């Protein structure tokens, strides 16, 4: 899927099932509080955790690899903070960077608040590399995201 999408699900069960099945190893990361940052790690450690674990690289090496993305998002100022001390925009930036660190081509936001969605689009623009954005929601929530102009597809009536 090489474009931004709004994916609507007929019911809550199908929506949760789809969300639960998403994995960075499939190229799709989740940027949402359902997949929160770990509270005993700093923002930087949270962001780099998938890279360090799967590639077996040190924190310094992982930071060097992700350096350009961190710089573009101007994230250096909050990297040493714990999640409790982060502003909402910083939390979203951390989610986005974590997806980038996990090599995700797509960032999925389940039923995001419109304000979060706008912030995420700004962050993505700053990042430049433009990972695809999927908004997943239930049928009832679908109209909320019309303003995004993303293509809308429905599950299970129609396959993407």
């Amino acid at each position, binding site marked *: 899927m090489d474009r931004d999408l709004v994916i609507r699900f007929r019911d809550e069960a199908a929506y949760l099932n789809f969300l639960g099945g*998403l*994995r*960075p*190893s499939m190229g799709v990361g*989740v940027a949402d509080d*359902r*997949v*929160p*940052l*770990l*509270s*005993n790690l700093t923002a930087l450690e949270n962001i780099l*955790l*998938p890279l*360090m*674990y*799967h590639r*077996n*690289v*040190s*924190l310094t090496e992982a930071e060097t690899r992700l350096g350009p993305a961190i710089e573009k998002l101007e994230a250096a100022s909050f990297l040493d903070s714990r999640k409790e001390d982060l502003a909402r925009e910083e939390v979203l930036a951390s989610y986005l960077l*974590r997806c980038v660190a*996990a090599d995700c081509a797509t960032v999925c936001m389940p039923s995001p608040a419109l304000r979060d969605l706008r912030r995420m689009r700004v962050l993505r623009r700053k990042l430049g590399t433009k990972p695809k954005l999927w908004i997943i929601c239930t049928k009832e929530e679908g109209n909320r995201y019309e303003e995004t102009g993303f293509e809308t597809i429905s599950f299970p009536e129609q396959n993407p």
Partner: protein
Amino acid sequence: MPLGAVKRLGRFAVERARAYGKIVQIAWGCARALASLSFANRAVFPVILRQFYFTAVQALPLVLFSALVVGSISVHYILQILTDLVGAYELVGTLLIHAVLHEIAPILCTMILLVRSGTAVISEVSLMKINRELDTLEHLGIDLDHYVHFPRVAAFILAGPSLTLIFSVVSLVGSFLIFGFRYNITFGLYLDELYAALTLKSLLIVVAKPVLMSAVMILTALQKAMDVEAAFTEVPVRLIQGLIRALGIIIVVELFFALL
């Protein structure tokens, strides 16, 4: 036997079997993590170090203080009985090694670990579960056995015997330096007696006992923490249950070694 009692007994047996099954599952997961050299992973190794620091290094002041206090009292009484009352100098080493190395040091250090770090692990992991942080790890494809269970089990298994050995040395040597002047035995003779009484079996016990006690304690703590479903109110309940069950298993281990 009334039907209600049978039902309760059955439920109790099933719950216990499930709990011990989960403990075995966690232990097996940790063994697999060890076999796959997960400790060499650069994301996992700092967690092991951090856990060891919290579990062993930060417990040192308390262990040293307890070793001096409890050791002094024990050594004081044993020396008093053996030197003043009985005059049996040749039993000083054997009795002190038995009392301190085999019994007091492993049990007291395990208790310190249980109260200090066992409770912390139950709270930390259950809160991680309630706050969906374990879901995050699963989502990122990070094995919970590698990242959550194994570092804590490894830290406890390393901390148990390390603290016991430190406790034993400080207790035996420090307590003589505090109270030894009161008895008709020189420091050199005291050390000679201890050295003569020290056997390979004593050294094995001082390592094996705390290893086993620490292992069952941390596995029980992890099982209880993973039992939490979604409510914060479950945490204190699991904490108390975990402490009591760990205490019970420690007593069983103690009995096992007593029968050896």
